[in-house]
């Protein structure tokens, strides 16, 4: 199971990568594996400022629907344009081309509340 060392994680299987005052958010390799073929992603929160753990979108596999939650508070400033036409990019490259949203952090201190790669590995028994 791929759990990159340079990211922070949530118990709901999102990852976050900090880039200055912004951050990129996606779902983990473990999550995409559990979901199976991702067929539809709906994110309609562009421009909204959301709290930590608020739903920013939904991800649908053939058989299931899951909400995606904000790892930390922030404003949604960009949505991955590839998700509309090729949602399976999340299966192929969950930490790269399959990213979900870019956010402007409103409370970066919350990063300290997230799981480290080691803690996340423990959570998924990797």
């Amino acid at each position, binding site marked *: 199971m791929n759990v990159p060392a340079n990211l922070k994680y949530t118990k709901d299987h999102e990852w976050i990568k900090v880039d200055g005052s912004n951050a990129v958010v996606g779902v983990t390799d473990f999550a995409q594996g559990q979901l*199976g*073929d991702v*067929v*539809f992603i*709906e994110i309609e929160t562009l421009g909204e400022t959301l709290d930590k753990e608020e739903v920013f979108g*939904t991800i*649908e*596999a*053939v*058989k299931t*629907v899951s909400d995606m939650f904000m790892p930390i508070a922030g404003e949604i400033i960009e949505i991955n344009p590839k998700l509309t036409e090729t949602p*399976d990019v999340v*299966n192929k490259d969950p930490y790269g081309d399959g990213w979900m949203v870019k956010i402007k952090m409103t409370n970066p201190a919350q990063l300290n509340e997230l799981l480290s790669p080691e803690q996340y590995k423990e959570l998924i028994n990797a």
Partner: protein
Amino acid sequence: MKNTAFTQFHIDLGAKMAEFAGYNMPIEYSGINDEHITVREKLGVFDVSHMGEIWVKGTKALEFIQYVTSNDASVLVDGKVQYSCFPNGRGGIVDDLLVYRVDSVTYLLVVNASNMEKDWNWLCEHAPKFGLTVGKELYNASDEIAQLAIQGPLALKAMQKLTDASVEDMEYYTFKKISFAGIKEVIFATTGYTGAGGCEIYCANEDAAKLWKAVFEAGKEFGIKPIGLGARDTLRLEMGFCLYGNDMNDEVSSIEAGLGWITKFVDGKNFINRDIWEKHKKEGADKMLKGFIMIERGIPRQHYIIYDAQGNEIGEVTSGTMSPMSKQGIGMGYLKKGFWKEGTEVFIGIRDKKLKAKVVKPPFHLAK
């Protein structure tokens, strides 16, 4: 949790496994979409050993089957298969099933794994009225029989390599007992629940490993793949085939479930529910199971509410998915009278939105 005769093969192939109807079953291997497309375009193999097999034998066998099932089994000839259902005596459906006629005194009933116990108890309850002894003329062989479904347009061509009997030209919904892949006797049936063509093969558990290996070897040159229950569900849904527990249950009639075509009110066939269902058919149902495709982007799911253009509730989704073939949301659900016509616009409540869909006839992946 029970294993089928093939469970270890699935695990060795790295399938995602889960419990289904008490069995440890493969949900997916390479991914539902890839498996689905493999079956539509080439051929794939499903372990369906969890299905229940019940023998009905003796001079009273037909009379018994005519009583407990809705379709007219008297029209069956040797080697013919019929889709049918068990009415429950309260206007609903116990299960759907296949009836195989081996000869005039030997029938095989194939039922859903998830209803095996319920079906068996139900049949045992009615058997004495026809002088059938449980364990003798009515015999549950489910734990002794392994079954593979090889489905897809290339399935029969590939399977022909494994037998001297002629199978490639068999008619849909027929079967024969043949020698196959070095196994002395299997039941080879041109049945299946994918709408992709192909066959289902029944053998004794002892012969299962031999069957599995031979089938994959014969199919190799055609691109054969193992298929899980996930794709089995999307394949049947594209065809508008009902799944018991989703699209029909103990509370709906065969008329409402769109199964009027397997409900035969012929002379001399006095089956359970006949009076209720005949009345239902004459008076007309208030709701009917209908299929639809999404016009706006979204995926319908079981229990989502269906609305009319004014926002009134008119039904509920019983099965839904994204069609792996058309990449469009497809589904089925019970709709109130007045919304049954092909092309009728309906709206599916998906999260906080009501998204436009329209009533279509199956196959849903080909509907425009």
